[in-house]
């Protein structure tokens, strides 16, 4: 599925993605999701379309462990997050919720570019630029979690963690 790019910079923290001042909305996810990237990109909520991509630089998702950061990205219909690097807790939170977080060189992707992700092939087509980007295959454990539809679904299926077998 093709989607448009929302391009962000380096060091976008979970506080940027969903600020702590909306802490009180964490048990009301649809309301919380309206405040995504509120200060960084005030037009995001209004203009985002299902299937869009968030593309960023280094250390995306640093800071607080709040899984709500990954959840509000998912709830806004984002197909995948592409970045040069991710903070580790956020990276796990994405996969646990069935949201692919792809590590790749994002310098050549610009705001508004139309992308298509081929997860299994480790490939991203940039239709706007007519270019193909490649990335290293997902670690087997992350692929397994994604294939099962997230960690909750995995545990529901096995009543156990069966990620290393």
């Amino acid at each position, binding site marked *: 599925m093709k989607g448009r790019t929302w391009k962000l910079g380096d*060091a976008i*923290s979970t*506080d*940027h993605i969903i*600020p*702590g*001042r909306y*802490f*009180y*909305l*964490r*048990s*009301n996810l649809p309301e919380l999701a309206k405040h995504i990237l509120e*200060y960084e990109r005030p037009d995001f909520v209004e203009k985002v379309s299902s299937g869009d991509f968030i593309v960023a630089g*280094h*250390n995306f998702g*640093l*800071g*607080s*462990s*709040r*899984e*709500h950061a*990954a959840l509000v990205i998912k709830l806004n219909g984002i197909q995948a997050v592409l970045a040069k*690097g*991710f*903070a*580790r*807790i*956020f990276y*796990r*939170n994405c996969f*646990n*919720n069935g949201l692919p977080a792809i590590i790749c060189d994002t310098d050549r992707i610009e705001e508004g570019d139309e992308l298509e992700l081929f997860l299994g092939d480790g490939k991203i087509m940039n239709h706007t630029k007519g270019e193909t980007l490649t990335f290293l295959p997902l*670690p*087997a*454990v992350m692929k397994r979690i994604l294939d099962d539809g*997230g*960690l*909750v679904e995995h*545990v*529901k299926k096995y009543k*156990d*963690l069966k*990620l*290393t077998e």
Partner: protein
Amino acid sequence: MGMTLAEKILSAHAGKEVRVGEIAVIKVDLAYTQDGTGPLAARKIQEMGFKEVCNPKRTLFFFDHASPSPRMELSNDHAFLREFAQKTGIQVSEVGQGISHQVAAEKYVRPGEVVVGADSHTCTGGAIGAFATGVGSTDAAVAIALGKVWFRVPETIRVLVEGKLPVGIYGKDIVLHLIGKIGAEGATYKALELGGDTIDNLQMAGRMTIANMAVEAGAKVGLFPSDEVTRNWLSRMGRAGDFKKMAPDGDAVYEKTVRIKAKDLKPVIACPHQVDNTKTIDEIGEVKVDQVFLGTSCNGRLEDLHAAAQILKGKTVHSKTRMIVTPGSRLVYTEALKDGTIETFINSGALVTPPGCGACVGLHEGVLGDGEVCLATQPRNFQGRMGSPKSFIYLGSPAVAAATAIEGKIADPRKYL
């Protein structure tokens, strides 16, 4: 081939020897959440269909972020967590008991254990020699329900701090210097392992400050060996029997070694809006401050309050600055009450709040307005963290906080010592 602390602890909990890069399912000794991540974790446990949890006596729900609750919605979250805990036997650490990482360290975390917490600063437990790390609500839910979690065994960066710490330099300055040096993603996915004679001589409060901020360099854990300092501290907590000696092997393999000379350190300040945007106090220039905040899981311990009170004693907080002091736990609070530290703060014009995360979370007890500047002892200074996205957060040691409160601008504590 020898093992790092991370390899040793993870191997002991994987039921087999595991080495760098391996993915393993790891037994969890202690799992916890706080009131911002707990409700989601509890719902995930329900969603997975578990009616019981693996080890309720070693599972904790902390109420520390919104403590006491400033909003109806959060009161409802608290009520939900209390009810869930009652049904499952999970332990509750109520409002006013203190910050999860501080209370966990005082009462629960043991050397050599694996601890997961749904809060990024869970790595504080590394000071006690535990593989303690932050996770999201789903990983915490799985750890609570099944008593296990999966980890990739991390590479380890050895951090050697050597020499005598100068007067006015603390654990906070060591860790801010380290993060400034290696960067906010300098240790992403990796373990930090601290060593050297400065660390050997550092008391538990300083070790916890360093371990707490390991995540600000991206690290999974900030591990310390457990030694006589650890043993004495556990004894002070009435837990002498929990001590176990943990040390890396002499021939352990490290990804790299970072060396820091203690004698060269100066007070370090992290400037807005990144923790690795560090300057020494000499480079900071004149920065007027509206609010000084002393506390948090990074610097809310008795030793931190003492370092600030020593400077503030007999002096007053600047007329254009307010100072907020939030003890890390009820134990810290009562000890500081008994020895006169709290009175020193109050007499100097500071405001003392109940124990908890306080102003660091941007929810209550010191929310910043547009254009306001805060000097805080907390671990992080991201834009908008303490309230307005148009406010500015600088990070420094408790001693810097006290000197800053007196002068109304970021100040060098060494002249007061």
